[in-house]
């Protein structure tokens, strides 16, 4: 599946689009963390909650539960939420 990542994660992932696999969103994120160490904890906190200023969309639908299943042809988009100042 394709995983789109925001500019905020560029120092970890190095690209805006990478291929990944996994049966759940968490498996996808853990796979990314093996390739790009530390990136999962920048998206998910220690209680396995999506960080307050991060949004994850699977096929255009916002997903909060990282145990949710994902498919090989799904499109995952990770977004830095509007915030700042």
């Amino acid at each position, binding site marked *: 599946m394709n995983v789109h990542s925001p500019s*905020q994660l560029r120092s970890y992932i190095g690209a805006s689009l990478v291929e990944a696999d996994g049966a759940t969103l968490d498996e996808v994120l853990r796979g990314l963390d093996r390739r790009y160490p*530390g990136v999962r*904890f*920048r998206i998910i*906190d220690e*209680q396995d909650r999506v*960080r307050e*200023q991060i949004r994850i969309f699977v096929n255009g639908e916002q997903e909060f539960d990282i145990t949710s299943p994902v498919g090989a042809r799904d499109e995952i988009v990770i977004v830095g939420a509007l915030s700042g100042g």
Partner: protein
Amino acid sequence: MVATQPRTAKTSKSSTGNVVLLVGTKKGGFILRGNSSRRAWTLSDPILLGSTVHHFVLDPRDGRTMLMAAVTGHLGPTVFRSTDAGKTWKEASRPPAFKKASEGEAGLSVKHVFWLTPGHASEPNVWYAGSSPQGLFRSDDGGVTWEGVAGFNENPMRETWTGGAQDGTPDGPKMHSILIDPRDKRHLYIGMSSGGIFESTDEGTSWAPLNKGCDFPYPIPGPLPEFGHDPHRAMLHPLMPDLLYQQNHAGIYRMERKDAQWTRIGKNMPPEVGDIGFPIVLRPRDPKTVWVFHMDGTDVWPRTSPGGKPAVYVTNDGGETWRRQANGLPKANAWWTVLRQAMTCDSRDPLGLYLGTTTGQLWGSTDEGGSWRLIAEHLPHIYAIEAVEPR
């Protein structure tokens, strides 16, 4: 480089090296290098531009390792580490994080790492970190990996001591002022806003409140509680580690540890000034000389310089009398303040004092506060300054 803030008795000697200021701001870290006279200063490029740096600290044990407590914008809290005196930086491989909660429980998440303290001189790779919400973390490998100190973070009294999420400062309740007794690595103090000062004599396994004599941040009926206070910054004196000072939300205090009782030395401040502020600085060579920076704590607590006239106050007699030091600071219309980590001193003789403002100015004094000069400006909102010197 050596850290100049008093952490061990060794740092109480005056030195002659050039002073370097490590500056943590809302938008990154900066290094400000002074010349030998401390009159000319050179600012580095920003480090981790865009990250909020709450604390930027040099390890006094090796003079090269630096840690920065950072919130990387959208990406949450972490710690960055440099082993070449700030030239290159790498993120901790396991940043401070609370223990994963059991199924069905909410669990705590670190919002930001607020405080960093190098460990005891006998433990070269040990560091402590304090977080928002209040959590205590320890690294045994120089800041690469961090573990929660279970004796505090998982203590069944933790939520009662801290008052929970709603009982904290506007940008979140936090742990700060992690102090280590230079004579005993197992003897620790912590400060919490809110929660109060707590002490451990077994390296963090157990904790007891140490707030007797300290006023409560707001009026409450009945006897004062043992905890729930709001210390803004606490320090122990390197020459007399049983002498503690704190700038609290409710005044300025001193304690001789054997008395286990805080004395409100801020009551000797001019009444029109009051004794509210964030930072407190101790003179490393003199246990009776203390500086504070006052702020407006009236009505709705503007937390700005009272009347728009910033000033430092100093005592040379342990708080019996206080003297205003504002020569060179703006005389009017300066509505900034100085946060709890944003005032510090070097170890030169005469001592240099430094303060960083919420409007991004750095002020310095080379005569122990007698006069002040602007040494850098146009920085982001300043959270922290540490003064260090080439070894």
